[in-house]
């Protein structure tokens, strides 16, 4: 565990938004104006065009607005406590998205690649089990269903406990 003073010094960029985001701009922002970064880890989640063999028309992301920002900031701060990071970005979209659309971006910078890569995996694993978002699938055949939580998401998150 690093001191809270160091944690507070690491810039966190955390946003919840309906609009799409630009992964290139986000990666650039993480390194802008500094030359001490050794590596950037990044994961971008996108909407797949099918689920359970049914063609998807759209994915609806519902969230708990009063809680979401804080939950994402908590996750970002936890990553900074666990790894020696130089910056963290977490962006999650809400609303209606078409297949192929970007949903989420997590990224972390560090002097050494292992910290950046592990923190990236941690951020998306914890986000999937600890941030108040819910996905609803609307299918091309007219049906719709709420996505069930996946046991392997819990397994992935449990790696970090």
């Amino acid at each position, binding site marked *: 565990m690093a001191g809270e003073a160091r944690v507070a010094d690491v810039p966190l960029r955390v946003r919840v938004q309906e609009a799409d985001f630009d992964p290139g701009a986000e990666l650039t922002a993480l390194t802008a104006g500094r030359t001490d970064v050794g590596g950037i880890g990044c994961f971008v*989640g996108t909407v797949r065009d099918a689920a359970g063999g049914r063609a998807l028309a759209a994915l609806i*992301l*519902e*969230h*708990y607005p*009063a*809680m979401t920002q*804080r*939950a994402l900031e908590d996750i970002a701060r936890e990553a900074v406590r666990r790894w020696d990071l130089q910056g963290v970005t977490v962006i*999650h979209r809400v609303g209606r998205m078409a297949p192929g659309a970007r*949903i*989420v971006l997590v990224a972390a910078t560090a002097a050494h690649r292992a910290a950046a890569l592990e923190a990236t995996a941690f951020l*998306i694993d914890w*986000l*999937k*089990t*600890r*941030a*108040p*978002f*819910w*996905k*609803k699938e609307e299918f091309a055949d007219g049906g719709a269903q*709420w*996505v*069930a*939580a*996946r046991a392997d*998401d819990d397994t992935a998150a449990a790696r970090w406990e």
Partner: protein
Amino acid sequence: MMDGARPVRLLWFAWLRERLGCGEEELTLPGDVTTVATLVAHLAARGPVYAEALAARMQVRCAVNQEFATPETAVHPGDEVAFFPPVTGG
């Protein structure tokens, strides 16, 4: 307490919101409701739709004042209490 009459704000999300036909409501806490567990019991007594939705305990999560809660978490007048399925973002 002077604020004993202040209602809690109840929020319902995802399939809970759809099944109960309600996303947000106010509720004045009965005197015997002091925790998430006793609040759930009170809400389940509203009728079979609530009872069934809340009976799936493994499938319902709760946050009090925007923090994940357990059955033992205290609920006070004026709190915001949200019920929702396990999260599926990312």
